[in-house]
């Protein structure tokens, strides 16, 4: 179809992506560019403390200004769990989603530049019913909100 256009986009996309990531804020502390692009340590953590350490932050404060949007209490299927997080905390720089009982806690980190609303929606996998954390970095400080999501069985079981 449009192979050529795709190739061009692919190349140009690759270059701009790296440049952009180099400029991005929430990177592994002191990491080189290759590591900085994806925070390997943070995605390997099993506890909140480990995650905060990998992100270079301190223990987050509970916040009522973080809300879960379009996030059901029960997921019919753990393979696709809708999750939306919105922050009303001024100067929100980043939003991260963590699932306590997943093999690795950290699901995703979103960096919010000025001009972008501090609200994102995506879908995630959950191995079992668990607490889900919405972690927000705002003006250099960390805040968190918690929600329990149940994962049910479905169908004929086979």
């Amino acid at each position, binding site marked *: 179809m449009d192979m050529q256009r*795709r190739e061009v*986009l*692919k190349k*140009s*996309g*690759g270059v*701009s*992506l790296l440049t*952009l*990531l180099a*400029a*991005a804020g*929430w990177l592994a502390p002191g990491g080189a560019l290759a590591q900085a*692009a*994806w*925070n390997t340590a*943070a*995605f390997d953590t099993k506890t909140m403390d480990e995650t905060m350490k990998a992100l270079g932050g301190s223990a987050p404060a509970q916040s009522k200004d973080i809300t879960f949007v379009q996030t059901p209490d029960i997921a019919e299927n753990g*393979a*696709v*769990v809708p999750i939306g997080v919105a922050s009303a905390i001024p100067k929100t720089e980043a939003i991260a989603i963590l*699932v306590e009982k*997943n*093999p*690795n806690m*950290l*699901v*995703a*980190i*979103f*960096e*919010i*530049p000025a*001009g*972008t*609303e501090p*609200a*994102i*929606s*995506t*879908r*995630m*996998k*959950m191995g079992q019913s668990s607490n889900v954390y919405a972690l927000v970095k705002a003006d250099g400080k960390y805040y968190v909100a918690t929600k329990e999501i149940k994962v049910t069985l479905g169908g004929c079981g086979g």
Partner: protein
Amino acid sequence: MADPMRIRANVTGDTTEVRVLMSHEMETGQRKDAAGKVIPAWHIQNVTATHNGKTVLTAQWGPAVSKNPFLSFKFKGGAKGDKVQVSWTDNKGDKRTDEAVIA
């Protein structure tokens, strides 16, 4: 090569809503195949969205983002006819960039 993304960008007032669907396995690295061998992790790691060349969102994803990922967010300042570009790279180095015109 990965299939194109589906990007929808719609402006209401001064806010542009971007909704993206990506075609990707998002293999966790936790599953085993029929022979009992672990299927290696294969997932998107980085996502970047730009509007007229300015970054409006970046993300780092682990393998717990669902297969064929969905992402939606809003930014201020888009106008009808402007371009929104979204790029991703995965842990195997595969990458893809697509764009949409704000409607």
